[in-house]
Protein backbone atom coordinates (compact mmCIF):
# COMPACT_ATOMS: atom_id res chain seq x y z
CA UNK A 1 0.00 0.00 0.00
CA UNK A 2 2.99 2.23 -0.26
CA UNK A 3 2.66 5.04 -2.73
CA UNK A 4 5.31 3.50 -4.92
CA UNK A 5 3.70 0.06 -5.47
CA UNK A 6 1.74 0.07 -8.73
CA UNK A 7 -2.06 0.24 -8.45
CA UNK A 8 -4.18 -2.88 -9.04
CA UNK A 9 -6.82 -1.04 -10.98
CA UNK A 10 -6.15 2.07 -13.01
CA UNK A 11 -8.83 4.15 -14.70
CA UNK A 12 -7.58 6.97 -16.92
CA UNK A 13 -9.53 9.83 -18.42
CA UNK A 14 -12.64 7.71 -18.90
CA UNK A 15 -15.51 9.10 -20.94
CA UNK A 16 -18.82 7.30 -21.29
CA UNK A 17 -21.90 8.05 -23.38
CA UNK A 18 -25.29 6.32 -23.18
CA UNK A 19 -27.36 5.80 -26.33
CA UNK A 20 -24.70 7.82 -28.19
CA UNK A 21 -26.09 11.04 -26.67
CA UNK A 22 -26.20 11.09 -22.86
CA UNK A 23 -22.78 12.01 -21.50
CA UNK A 24 -22.41 10.23 -18.17
CA UNK A 25 -18.65 10.39 -17.52
CA UNK A 26 -16.55 13.31 -18.71
CA UNK A 27 -13.05 12.02 -18.23
CA UNK A 28 -12.49 10.52 -14.79
CA UNK A 29 -9.28 9.02 -13.48
CA UNK A 30 -8.95 6.91 -10.38
CA UNK A 31 -6.81 4.20 -8.88
CA UNK A 32 -7.46 1.26 -6.60
CA UNK A 33 -4.32 -0.03 -4.84
CA UNK A 34 -3.39 -3.69 -4.33
CA UNK A 35 -5.08 -3.61 -0.98
CA UNK A 36 -7.56 -1.41 0.83
CA UNK A 37 -10.95 0.18 0.39
CA UNK A 38 -11.44 3.14 -1.93
CA UNK A 39 -14.69 5.10 -1.71
CA UNK A 40 -16.41 6.66 -4.70
CA UNK A 41 -18.92 9.23 -3.47
CA UNK A 42 -21.37 11.49 -5.18
CA UNK A 43 -25.02 12.46 -5.54
CA UNK A 44 -27.64 10.81 -7.74
CA UNK A 45 -26.74 10.74 -11.37
CA UNK A 46 -23.10 11.67 -10.75
CA UNK A 47 -21.96 8.63 -12.73
CA UNK A 48 -20.87 6.29 -9.94
CA UNK A 49 -22.66 3.23 -11.30
CA UNK A 50 -21.52 4.12 -14.79
CA UNK A 51 -17.90 4.09 -13.62
CA UNK A 52 -18.36 0.61 -12.11
CA UNK A 53 -20.06 -0.67 -15.26
CA UNK A 54 -17.21 0.60 -17.38
CA UNK A 55 -14.76 -1.31 -15.20
CA UNK A 56 -16.80 -4.52 -15.05
CA UNK A 57 -17.92 -4.51 -18.68
CA UNK A 58 -21.66 -4.20 -18.11
CA UNK A 59 -22.02 -0.93 -20.03
CA UNK A 60 -22.91 -2.65 -23.27
CA UNK A 61 -26.07 -4.06 -21.72
CA UNK A 62 -27.19 -0.51 -20.98
CA UNK A 63 -26.31 0.74 -24.43
CA UNK A 64 -23.39 2.69 -23.04
CA UNK A 65 -20.06 3.18 -24.84
CA UNK A 66 -16.64 4.23 -23.74
CA UNK A 67 -15.62 7.05 -26.05
CA UNK A 68 -12.23 7.71 -24.52
CA UNK A 69 -9.85 6.56 -21.82
CA UNK A 70 -8.59 3.29 -20.44
CA UNK A 71 -9.22 0.76 -17.72
CA UNK A 72 -6.38 -1.54 -16.75
CA UNK A 73 -5.80 -4.14 -14.07
CA UNK A 74 -2.18 -4.83 -13.17
CA UNK A 75 -1.28 -3.23 -16.48
CA UNK A 76 -3.63 -5.45 -18.52
CA UNK A 77 -6.17 -3.62 -20.66
CA UNK A 78 -9.64 -4.72 -19.52
CA UNK A 79 -11.67 -2.94 -22.15
CA UNK A 80 -11.26 -5.61 -24.78
CA UNK A 81 -12.61 -8.37 -22.55
CA UNK A 82 -16.33 -9.18 -22.35
CA UNK A 83 -17.96 -8.91 -18.93
CA UNK A 84 -18.01 -12.61 -18.08
CA UNK A 85 -14.31 -12.92 -18.85
CA UNK A 86 -13.44 -9.90 -16.69
CA UNK A 87 -15.30 -11.57 -13.82
CA UNK A 88 -13.18 -14.67 -14.22
CA UNK A 89 -10.08 -12.45 -14.29
CA UNK A 90 -11.09 -11.24 -10.83
CA UNK A 91 -13.06 -8.04 -11.42
CA UNK A 92 -16.41 -8.59 -9.72
CA UNK A 93 -19.21 -6.05 -9.46
CA UNK A 94 -21.95 -6.39 -6.85
CA UNK A 95 -24.85 -4.62 -8.49
CA UNK A 96 -26.88 -1.88 -6.88
CA UNK A 97 -30.06 -3.13 -5.23
CA UNK A 98 -28.74 -6.59 -4.23
CA UNK A 99 -30.24 -8.28 -7.28
CA UNK A 100 -30.63 -11.71 -5.75
CA UNK A 101 -31.95 -14.36 -8.14
CA UNK A 102 -35.19 -14.75 -6.25
CA UNK A 103 -36.44 -17.86 -8.04
CA UNK A 104 -33.24 -19.74 -7.28
CA UNK A 105 -32.46 -21.18 -3.88
CA UNK A 106 -29.85 -19.58 -1.63
CA UNK A 107 -27.38 -22.31 -2.51
CA UNK A 108 -28.10 -22.03 -6.23
CA UNK A 109 -27.38 -18.31 -6.08
CA UNK A 110 -23.93 -19.16 -4.78
CA UNK A 111 -23.51 -21.94 -7.36
CA UNK A 112 -24.47 -19.55 -10.15
CA UNK A 113 -21.61 -17.35 -8.93
CA UNK A 114 -19.28 -20.29 -9.45
CA UNK A 115 -20.45 -21.38 -12.90
CA UNK A 116 -17.68 -23.00 -14.92
CA UNK A 117 -15.45 -23.71 -11.93
CA UNK A 118 -14.38 -27.19 -10.91
CA UNK A 119 -16.96 -28.95 -8.75
CA UNK A 120 -14.60 -29.27 -5.82
CA UNK A 121 -13.47 -25.65 -5.74
CA UNK A 122 -17.07 -24.56 -6.10
CA UNK A 123 -18.23 -26.71 -3.21
CA UNK A 124 -15.42 -25.35 -1.02
CA UNK A 125 -16.38 -21.77 -1.75
CA UNK A 126 -20.06 -22.47 -1.04
CA UNK A 127 -18.95 -24.04 2.21
CA UNK A 128 -16.89 -20.98 3.14
CA UNK A 129 -19.92 -18.73 2.52
CA UNK A 130 -21.98 -20.99 4.78
CA UNK A 131 -19.29 -20.82 7.43
CA UNK A 132 -19.23 -17.03 7.26
CA UNK A 133 -23.01 -16.83 7.57
CA UNK A 134 -24.71 -19.87 9.11
CA UNK A 135 -28.10 -18.33 8.30
CA UNK A 136 -27.33 -18.98 4.63
CA UNK A 137 -26.70 -22.62 5.39
CA UNK A 138 -29.93 -22.93 7.36
CA UNK A 139 -31.88 -21.54 4.44
CA UNK A 140 -29.83 -23.00 1.61
CA UNK A 141 -32.81 -24.74 -0.01
CA UNK A 142 -35.24 -21.85 0.30
CA UNK A 143 -35.89 -19.43 -2.50
CA UNK A 144 -33.42 -16.59 -2.02
CA UNK A 145 -36.21 -14.09 -2.58
CA UNK A 146 -37.50 -14.87 0.91
CA UNK A 147 -34.33 -13.65 2.68
CA UNK A 148 -34.42 -10.29 4.46
CA UNK A 149 -32.80 -7.30 2.79
CA UNK A 150 -29.67 -7.55 4.93
CA UNK A 151 -29.34 -11.28 4.35
CA UNK A 152 -29.78 -10.72 0.62
CA UNK A 153 -26.94 -8.21 0.59
CA UNK A 154 -24.68 -10.61 2.46
CA UNK A 155 -25.64 -13.34 -0.02
CA UNK A 156 -24.97 -11.00 -2.95
CA UNK A 157 -21.47 -10.28 -1.66
CA UNK A 158 -20.74 -13.94 -0.87
CA UNK A 159 -21.98 -14.84 -4.34
CA UNK A 160 -19.46 -12.37 -5.77
CA UNK A 161 -16.71 -13.87 -3.62
CA UNK A 162 -17.25 -17.23 -5.39
CA UNK A 163 -14.85 -15.98 -8.09
CA UNK A 164 -12.10 -15.19 -5.56
CA UNK A 165 -12.02 -11.62 -6.89
CA UNK A 166 -8.94 -9.44 -6.91
CA UNK A 167 -11.10 -6.35 -6.79
CA UNK A 168 -14.69 -6.09 -5.62
CA UNK A 169 -16.81 -3.24 -7.01
CA UNK A 170 -19.63 -2.56 -4.57
CA UNK A 171 -22.52 -0.40 -5.75
CA UNK A 172 -24.36 1.17 -2.80
CA UNK A 173 -24.37 -1.93 -0.62
CA UNK A 174 -26.05 -0.15 2.31
CA UNK A 175 -29.01 1.14 0.38
CA UNK A 176 -32.28 0.45 2.17
CA UNK A 177 -30.73 -1.61 4.96
CA UNK A 178 -31.53 -1.43 8.66
CA UNK A 179 -28.78 -0.01 10.93
CA UNK A 180 -28.05 -3.52 12.16
CA UNK A 181 -27.67 -4.82 8.61
CA UNK A 182 -25.46 -1.84 7.73
CA UNK A 183 -23.20 -2.93 10.59
CA UNK A 184 -23.05 -6.52 9.34
CA UNK A 185 -22.32 -5.52 5.76
CA UNK A 186 -19.56 -3.06 6.79
CA UNK A 187 -18.03 -5.75 8.95
CA UNK A 188 -18.03 -8.14 5.99
CA UNK A 189 -16.40 -5.49 3.79
CA UNK A 190 -13.69 -4.93 6.40
CA UNK A 191 -13.02 -8.65 6.62
CA UNK A 192 -12.86 -9.07 2.86
CA UNK A 193 -10.44 -6.20 2.65
CA UNK A 194 -8.32 -7.71 5.43
CA UNK A 195 -8.25 -10.97 3.46
CA UNK A 196 -6.50 -9.10 0.67
CA UNK A 197 -9.29 -8.20 -1.75
CA UNK A 198 -9.27 -4.61 -2.99
CA UNK A 199 -12.60 -2.85 -2.73
CA UNK A 200 -14.04 0.05 -4.71
CA UNK A 201 -17.03 1.17 -2.70
CA UNK A 202 -19.67 3.38 -4.29
CA UNK A 203 -21.87 5.14 -1.76
CA UNK A 204 -24.11 8.09 -1.16
CA UNK A 205 -23.82 7.36 2.54
CA UNK A 206 -20.48 9.11 2.87
CA UNK A 207 -20.11 8.79 6.62
CA UNK A 208 -20.18 4.98 6.55
CA UNK A 209 -18.09 4.84 3.38
CA UNK A 210 -15.38 7.14 4.71
CA UNK A 211 -15.16 5.11 7.91
CA UNK A 212 -14.39 1.98 5.85
CA UNK A 213 -12.20 3.55 3.20
CA UNK A 214 -8.67 4.83 3.38
CA UNK A 215 -9.02 6.94 0.25
CA UNK A 216 -11.94 8.57 -1.50
CA UNK A 217 -13.05 10.26 -4.70
CA UNK A 218 -16.02 12.58 -5.02
CA UNK A 219 -17.83 12.52 -8.32
CA UNK A 220 -20.23 15.15 -9.58
CA UNK A 221 -21.89 15.25 -13.00
CA UNK A 222 -19.37 12.89 -14.49
CA UNK A 223 -16.21 14.49 -13.11
CA UNK A 224 -13.99 13.89 -10.11
CA UNK A 225 -14.28 17.11 -8.12
CA UNK A 226 -12.31 16.06 -5.07
CA UNK A 227 -10.11 13.22 -3.96
CA UNK A 228 -7.84 12.45 -1.04
CA UNK A 229 -7.23 10.25 1.98
CA UNK A 230 -10.45 9.38 3.80
CA UNK A 231 -9.67 11.33 6.95
CA UNK A 232 -8.89 14.45 4.93
CA UNK A 233 -12.21 14.10 3.09
CA UNK A 234 -14.04 13.66 6.38
CA UNK A 235 -12.61 16.97 7.54
CA UNK A 236 -13.28 18.78 4.28
CA UNK A 237 -15.96 21.45 4.82
CA UNK A 238 -17.59 20.83 1.40
CA UNK A 239 -17.83 17.10 2.01
CA UNK A 240 -19.20 17.74 5.48
CA UNK A 241 -21.78 20.09 4.14
CA UNK A 242 -22.98 18.08 1.17
CA UNK A 243 -22.28 14.45 2.00
CA UNK A 244 -22.02 14.08 5.73
CA UNK A 245 -25.14 16.04 6.51
CA UNK A 246 -23.50 18.69 8.70
CA UNK A 247 -24.70 22.24 8.32
CA UNK A 248 -28.33 23.00 7.58
CA UNK A 249 -27.97 23.45 3.84
CA UNK A 250 -26.26 20.13 3.45
CA UNK A 251 -28.69 18.25 5.57
CA UNK A 252 -31.61 19.44 3.55
CA UNK A 253 -29.80 18.83 0.30
CA UNK A 254 -28.97 15.29 1.20
CA UNK A 255 -32.44 14.61 2.48
CA UNK A 256 -33.94 15.86 -0.74
CA UNK A 257 -31.65 13.66 -2.72
CA UNK A 258 -32.91 10.65 -0.82
CA UNK A 259 -36.52 11.63 -1.41
CA UNK A 260 -35.90 12.11 -5.08
CA UNK A 261 -34.21 8.77 -5.16
CA UNK A 262 -37.14 7.03 -3.52
CA UNK A 263 -39.51 8.65 -5.93
CA UNK A 264 -37.40 7.57 -8.85
CA UNK A 265 -37.43 4.02 -7.60
CA UNK A 266 -41.18 3.99 -7.34
CA UNK A 267 -41.42 5.14 -10.91
CA UNK A 268 -38.97 2.73 -12.37
Amino acid at each position, binding site marked *: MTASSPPLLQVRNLQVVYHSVVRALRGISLEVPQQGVVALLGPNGAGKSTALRAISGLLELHDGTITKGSVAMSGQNLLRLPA*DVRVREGV*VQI*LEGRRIL*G*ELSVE*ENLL*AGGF*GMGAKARAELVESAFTRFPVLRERRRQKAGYLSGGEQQLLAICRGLMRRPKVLLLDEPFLGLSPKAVGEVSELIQRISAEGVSVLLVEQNASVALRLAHYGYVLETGKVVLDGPADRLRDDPDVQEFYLGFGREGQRGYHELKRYRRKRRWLS
Partner: protein
Amino acid sequence: MTQLLQLSISGLALGASYALIALGFSVVYRASRLFNFAHGELLSLGAFLMTALVDVLPWWLALFAAAALTGGLAALLERTVLRRMVGRPVFTTIILTLFLGLLLRAGIVIAFGTDTRGMPTPWDAMAEVQVGNATVLLSSLVSLGATTAVLVLMHALVQRTPLGVAMRAASESQEVSLALGIPVGRVLAFTWFLAGATAAVAGIFLGMFPRSVDSNLGYVALRAFPAIIVGGLESVVGAVVAAFMLGLLEVLSQAYVNPHLGAFGHNFHAVFPYAAMILFLVLRPRGLWGEHEVRRV
Protein backbone atom coordinates in the same frame (compact mmCIF):
# COMPACT_ATOMS: atom_id res chain seq x y z
CA MET B 1 -63.27 -49.80 -20.13
CA THR B 2 -60.91 -51.44 -22.57
CA GLN B 3 -61.47 -48.68 -25.03
CA LEU B 4 -60.90 -46.05 -22.37
CA LEU B 5 -57.52 -47.57 -21.47
CA GLN B 6 -56.58 -47.79 -25.11
CA LEU B 7 -57.52 -44.17 -25.73
CA SER B 8 -55.83 -42.99 -22.57
CA ILE B 9 -52.52 -44.46 -23.66
CA SER B 10 -52.66 -42.85 -27.05
CA GLY B 11 -53.85 -39.64 -25.40
CA LEU B 12 -50.90 -39.65 -23.04
CA ALA B 13 -48.52 -40.40 -25.91
CA LEU B 14 -49.91 -37.40 -27.76
CA GLY B 15 -49.72 -35.39 -24.55
CA ALA B 16 -46.06 -36.29 -24.06
CA SER B 17 -45.24 -34.88 -27.49
CA TYR B 18 -47.25 -31.75 -26.71
CA ALA B 19 -45.30 -31.53 -23.46
CA LEU B 20 -42.00 -31.52 -25.34
CA ILE B 21 -43.31 -28.78 -27.62
CA ALA B 22 -44.61 -26.75 -24.68
CA LEU B 23 -41.33 -27.24 -22.86
CA GLY B 24 -39.26 -25.92 -25.75
CA PHE B 25 -41.58 -23.00 -26.29
CA SER B 26 -41.63 -21.94 -22.66
CA VAL B 27 -37.90 -22.47 -22.07
CA VAL B 28 -37.21 -20.13 -24.98
CA TYR B 29 -39.77 -17.65 -23.72
CA ARG B 30 -38.15 -17.60 -20.31
CA ALA B 31 -34.64 -17.22 -21.69
CA SER B 32 -35.22 -14.72 -24.49
CA ARG B 33 -38.61 -13.24 -23.52
CA LEU B 34 -40.11 -13.89 -26.91
CA PHE B 35 -42.79 -16.09 -28.41
CA ASN B 36 -41.10 -18.28 -30.95
CA PHE B 37 -43.72 -18.95 -33.59
CA ALA B 38 -41.11 -20.71 -35.70
CA HIS B 39 -41.09 -23.50 -33.13
CA GLY B 40 -43.57 -25.60 -35.13
CA GLU B 41 -41.42 -25.47 -38.24
CA LEU B 42 -38.41 -26.67 -36.23
CA LEU B 43 -40.53 -29.64 -35.25
CA SER B 44 -41.44 -30.25 -38.86
CA LEU B 45 -37.80 -29.90 -39.94
CA GLY B 46 -36.76 -32.47 -37.37
CA ALA B 47 -39.29 -34.97 -38.68
CA PHE B 48 -38.27 -34.45 -42.32
CA LEU B 49 -34.57 -34.70 -41.48
CA MET B 50 -35.31 -37.97 -39.73
CA THR B 51 -37.09 -39.43 -42.76
CA ALA B 52 -33.99 -38.64 -44.80
CA LEU B 53 -31.32 -39.59 -42.26
CA VAL B 54 -32.67 -43.10 -41.61
CA ASP B 55 -31.52 -43.95 -45.13
CA VAL B 56 -27.90 -43.43 -44.15
CA LEU B 57 -27.75 -43.97 -40.40
CA PRO B 58 -29.03 -46.57 -37.95
CA TRP B 59 -32.41 -45.46 -36.57
CA TRP B 60 -31.26 -44.32 -33.14
CA LEU B 61 -28.30 -42.43 -34.53
CA ALA B 62 -30.56 -40.78 -37.08
CA LEU B 63 -32.81 -39.68 -34.20
CA PHE B 64 -29.89 -38.04 -32.41
CA ALA B 65 -28.56 -36.50 -35.59
CA ALA B 66 -31.94 -35.04 -36.57
CA ALA B 67 -32.35 -33.61 -33.07
CA ALA B 68 -28.81 -32.19 -33.02
CA LEU B 69 -29.13 -30.61 -36.47
CA THR B 70 -32.48 -29.03 -35.63
CA GLY B 71 -31.13 -27.81 -32.31
CA GLY B 72 -28.09 -26.40 -34.07
CA LEU B 73 -30.28 -24.46 -36.46
CA ALA B 74 -32.33 -23.09 -33.56
CA ALA B 75 -29.16 -21.95 -31.81
CA LEU B 76 -27.96 -20.35 -35.04
CA LEU B 77 -31.24 -18.44 -35.42
CA GLU B 78 -30.85 -17.20 -31.88
CA ARG B 79 -27.27 -16.06 -32.32
CA THR B 80 -27.72 -14.38 -35.69
CA VAL B 81 -31.22 -12.92 -35.65
CA LEU B 82 -33.22 -13.22 -32.47
CA ARG B 83 -30.60 -12.10 -29.97
CA ARG B 84 -30.84 -8.62 -31.43
CA MET B 85 -34.55 -8.63 -30.71
CA VAL B 86 -34.31 -8.91 -26.94
CA GLY B 87 -36.25 -6.08 -25.38
CA ARG B 88 -38.03 -5.13 -28.59
CA PRO B 89 -41.83 -4.83 -28.53
CA VAL B 90 -43.60 -8.21 -28.36
CA PHE B 91 -45.31 -7.45 -31.66
CA THR B 92 -42.01 -7.07 -33.52
CA THR B 93 -40.65 -10.38 -32.31
CA ILE B 94 -43.92 -12.18 -33.11
CA ILE B 95 -43.87 -10.95 -36.67
CA LEU B 96 -40.20 -11.82 -36.99
CA THR B 97 -40.57 -15.37 -35.70
CA LEU B 98 -43.66 -15.92 -37.84
CA PHE B 99 -41.59 -14.79 -40.82
CA LEU B 100 -38.69 -17.06 -39.88
CA GLY B 101 -41.22 -19.90 -39.62
CA LEU B 102 -42.44 -19.20 -43.14
CA LEU B 103 -38.88 -19.18 -44.44
CA LEU B 104 -38.15 -22.48 -42.74
CA ARG B 105 -41.32 -23.94 -44.17
CA ALA B 106 -40.37 -22.82 -47.66
CA GLY B 107 -36.92 -24.31 -47.15
CA ILE B 108 -38.43 -27.62 -46.06
CA VAL B 109 -40.70 -27.76 -49.11
CA ILE B 110 -37.78 -26.99 -51.41
CA ALA B 111 -35.56 -29.61 -49.80
CA PHE B 112 -38.07 -32.40 -49.19
CA GLY B 113 -40.98 -31.67 -51.55
CA THR B 114 -44.65 -31.66 -50.68
CA ASP B 115 -45.27 -35.42 -50.62
CA THR B 116 -46.58 -37.01 -47.49
CA ARG B 117 -44.02 -39.36 -45.97
CA GLY B 118 -44.33 -42.17 -43.49
CA MET B 119 -42.05 -41.99 -40.47
CA PRO B 120 -39.85 -45.09 -40.60
CA THR B 121 -39.56 -47.11 -37.40
CA PRO B 122 -37.20 -49.97 -36.56
CA TRP B 123 -40.23 -51.94 -35.35
CA ASP B 124 -43.20 -52.78 -37.56
CA ALA B 125 -45.00 -49.49 -37.77
CA MET B 126 -48.38 -51.15 -37.32
CA ALA B 127 -47.37 -53.61 -34.61
CA GLU B 128 -49.74 -53.79 -31.68
CA VAL B 129 -49.25 -54.94 -28.13
CA GLN B 130 -51.61 -56.04 -25.40
CA VAL B 131 -51.81 -53.85 -22.32
CA GLY B 132 -54.28 -55.57 -20.01
CA ASN B 133 -57.33 -56.04 -22.18
CA ALA B 134 -56.48 -53.22 -24.48
CA THR B 135 -54.64 -53.41 -27.76
CA VAL B 136 -52.40 -50.43 -28.42
CA LEU B 137 -49.93 -49.52 -31.11
CA LEU B 138 -46.36 -50.31 -30.16
CA SER B 139 -45.44 -46.90 -31.61
CA SER B 140 -47.69 -45.19 -29.07
CA LEU B 141 -45.97 -46.97 -26.21
CA VAL B 142 -42.46 -46.26 -27.49
CA SER B 143 -43.42 -42.68 -28.15
CA LEU B 144 -44.84 -42.28 -24.65
CA GLY B 145 -41.74 -43.86 -23.12
CA ALA B 146 -39.18 -41.98 -25.18
CA THR B 147 -40.74 -38.53 -24.92
CA THR B 148 -41.28 -38.99 -21.19
CA ALA B 149 -37.65 -40.00 -20.82
CA VAL B 150 -36.58 -36.84 -22.66
CA LEU B 151 -38.81 -34.76 -20.40
CA VAL B 152 -37.30 -36.31 -17.29
CA LEU B 153 -33.77 -35.76 -18.61
CA MET B 154 -34.51 -32.14 -19.40
CA HIS B 155 -35.95 -31.64 -15.96
CA ALA B 156 -32.88 -33.16 -14.35
CA LEU B 157 -30.60 -31.03 -16.51
CA VAL B 158 -32.37 -27.80 -15.65
CA GLN B 159 -32.92 -28.51 -11.96
CA ARG B 160 -29.85 -30.45 -10.96
CA THR B 161 -26.82 -29.42 -13.02
CA PRO B 162 -24.62 -26.30 -12.97
CA LEU B 163 -25.63 -25.63 -16.55
CA GLY B 164 -29.28 -25.74 -15.51
CA VAL B 165 -28.59 -23.27 -12.70
CA ALA B 166 -26.92 -20.98 -15.24
CA MET B 167 -29.89 -21.34 -17.60
CA ARG B 168 -32.31 -20.37 -14.86
CA ALA B 169 -30.06 -17.53 -13.71
CA ALA B 170 -29.85 -16.15 -17.25
CA SER B 171 -33.64 -16.43 -17.58
CA GLU B 172 -34.12 -14.43 -14.44
CA SER B 173 -31.58 -11.68 -15.13
CA GLN B 174 -29.03 -11.41 -17.89
CA GLU B 175 -27.26 -8.53 -16.18
CA VAL B 176 -26.86 -10.39 -12.89
CA SER B 177 -25.71 -13.51 -14.72
CA LEU B 178 -23.08 -11.59 -16.68
CA ALA B 179 -21.92 -9.92 -13.48
CA LEU B 180 -21.48 -13.40 -12.01
CA GLY B 181 -19.27 -14.48 -14.88
CA ILE B 182 -21.85 -16.66 -16.64
CA PRO B 183 -21.31 -16.60 -20.43
CA VAL B 184 -24.91 -15.59 -21.05
CA GLY B 185 -24.65 -15.65 -24.84
CA ARG B 186 -23.54 -19.26 -24.90
CA VAL B 187 -26.10 -20.27 -22.29
CA LEU B 188 -28.89 -18.70 -24.37
CA ALA B 189 -27.71 -20.42 -27.52
CA PHE B 190 -27.66 -23.71 -25.64
CA THR B 191 -31.21 -23.12 -24.41
CA TRP B 192 -32.34 -22.67 -27.99
CA PHE B 193 -30.41 -25.75 -28.98
CA LEU B 194 -32.36 -27.76 -26.40
CA ALA B 195 -35.65 -26.28 -27.58
CA GLY B 196 -34.87 -27.16 -31.21
CA ALA B 197 -33.68 -30.66 -30.36
CA THR B 198 -36.74 -31.46 -28.25
CA ALA B 199 -39.00 -30.05 -30.96
CA ALA B 200 -37.37 -32.44 -33.42
CA VAL B 201 -37.94 -35.40 -31.09
CA ALA B 202 -41.58 -34.39 -30.71
CA GLY B 203 -41.91 -34.08 -34.49
CA ILE B 204 -40.41 -37.49 -35.07
CA PHE B 205 -42.81 -39.25 -32.72
CA LEU B 206 -45.78 -37.20 -33.87
CA GLY B 207 -45.03 -38.22 -37.44
CA MET B 208 -45.38 -41.94 -36.70
CA PHE B 209 -48.29 -44.09 -37.80
CA PRO B 210 -51.24 -43.47 -37.66
CA ARG B 211 -50.06 -39.95 -38.44
CA SER B 212 -47.55 -39.05 -41.12
CA VAL B 213 -45.05 -36.35 -42.04
CA ASP B 214 -46.07 -33.57 -44.38
CA SER B 215 -45.36 -29.88 -44.66
CA ASN B 216 -48.29 -29.09 -42.35
CA LEU B 217 -46.79 -30.97 -39.43
CA GLY B 218 -45.57 -27.68 -38.01
CA TYR B 219 -49.12 -26.64 -37.27
CA VAL B 220 -49.25 -29.28 -34.56
CA ALA B 221 -47.28 -26.85 -32.43
CA LEU B 222 -50.28 -24.56 -32.49
CA ARG B 223 -52.29 -27.38 -30.97
CA ALA B 224 -49.90 -27.42 -28.02
CA PHE B 225 -50.51 -23.73 -27.52
CA PRO B 226 -53.42 -24.09 -25.07
CA ALA B 227 -51.13 -26.13 -22.83
CA ILE B 228 -48.58 -23.34 -22.77
CA ILE B 229 -51.18 -20.73 -21.92
CA VAL B 230 -53.00 -22.86 -19.37
CA GLY B 231 -49.78 -24.07 -17.77
CA GLY B 232 -48.55 -20.53 -17.44
CA LEU B 233 -45.68 -19.28 -19.60
CA GLU B 234 -43.52 -18.83 -16.55
CA SER B 235 -44.01 -22.34 -15.29
CA VAL B 236 -42.41 -25.16 -17.22
CA VAL B 237 -43.92 -27.80 -14.94
CA GLY B 238 -47.37 -26.26 -15.38
CA ALA B 239 -47.02 -26.33 -19.17
CA VAL B 240 -45.96 -29.98 -19.12
CA VAL B 241 -48.83 -31.08 -16.89
CA ALA B 242 -51.29 -29.13 -19.00
CA ALA B 243 -49.87 -30.75 -22.15
CA PHE B 244 -50.59 -34.24 -20.86
CA MET B 245 -54.13 -33.21 -19.96
CA LEU B 246 -54.50 -31.67 -23.38
CA GLY B 247 -53.44 -34.87 -25.17
CA LEU B 248 -55.91 -36.90 -23.15
CA LEU B 249 -58.67 -34.37 -23.70
CA GLU B 250 -58.12 -34.31 -27.41
CA VAL B 251 -58.17 -38.09 -27.89
CA LEU B 252 -61.04 -38.69 -25.50
CA SER B 253 -63.22 -35.97 -26.95
CA GLN B 254 -62.55 -37.29 -30.42
CA ALA B 255 -63.90 -40.66 -29.36
CA TYR B 256 -66.65 -39.73 -26.97
CA VAL B 257 -67.84 -36.25 -27.93
CA ASN B 258 -67.44 -35.94 -31.71
CA PRO B 259 -69.92 -38.74 -32.57
CA HIS B 260 -72.70 -37.01 -30.65
CA LEU B 261 -72.42 -33.75 -32.49
CA GLY B 262 -73.34 -34.89 -35.98
CA ALA B 263 -71.82 -32.92 -38.82
CA PHE B 264 -70.68 -30.24 -36.39
CA GLY B 265 -68.62 -32.81 -34.53
CA HIS B 266 -66.39 -33.69 -37.46
CA ASN B 267 -63.32 -31.92 -36.14
CA PHE B 268 -64.63 -30.87 -32.78
CA HIS B 269 -61.69 -32.41 -30.91
CA ALA B 270 -59.33 -29.98 -32.59
CA VAL B 271 -61.29 -26.98 -31.35
CA PHE B 272 -62.26 -28.36 -27.99
CA PRO B 273 -58.91 -27.68 -26.27
CA TYR B 274 -59.15 -24.01 -27.26
CA ALA B 275 -62.64 -23.81 -25.79
CA ALA B 276 -61.35 -25.49 -22.64
CA MET B 277 -58.42 -23.06 -22.56
CA ILE B 278 -60.67 -20.01 -22.76
CA LEU B 279 -62.93 -21.36 -20.04
CA PHE B 280 -59.89 -22.11 -17.92
CA LEU B 281 -58.41 -18.66 -18.37
CA VAL B 282 -61.69 -17.09 -17.30
CA LEU B 283 -61.62 -19.15 -14.13
CA ARG B 284 -57.85 -18.97 -13.41
CA PRO B 285 -56.27 -16.10 -15.31
CA ARG B 286 -52.81 -16.84 -13.94
CA GLY B 287 -52.58 -20.38 -15.23
CA LEU B 288 -52.26 -23.63 -13.33
CA TRP B 289 -49.23 -22.71 -11.27
CA GLY B 290 -48.76 -19.16 -12.39
CA GLU B 291 -47.60 -16.82 -9.67
CA HIS B 292 -47.05 -14.17 -12.28
CA GLU B 293 -49.81 -12.69 -14.29
CA VAL B 294 -50.14 -14.07 -17.80
CA ARG B 295 -48.86 -11.43 -20.14
CA ARG B 296 -51.54 -10.16 -22.40
CA VAL B 297 -50.31 -9.69 -25.91
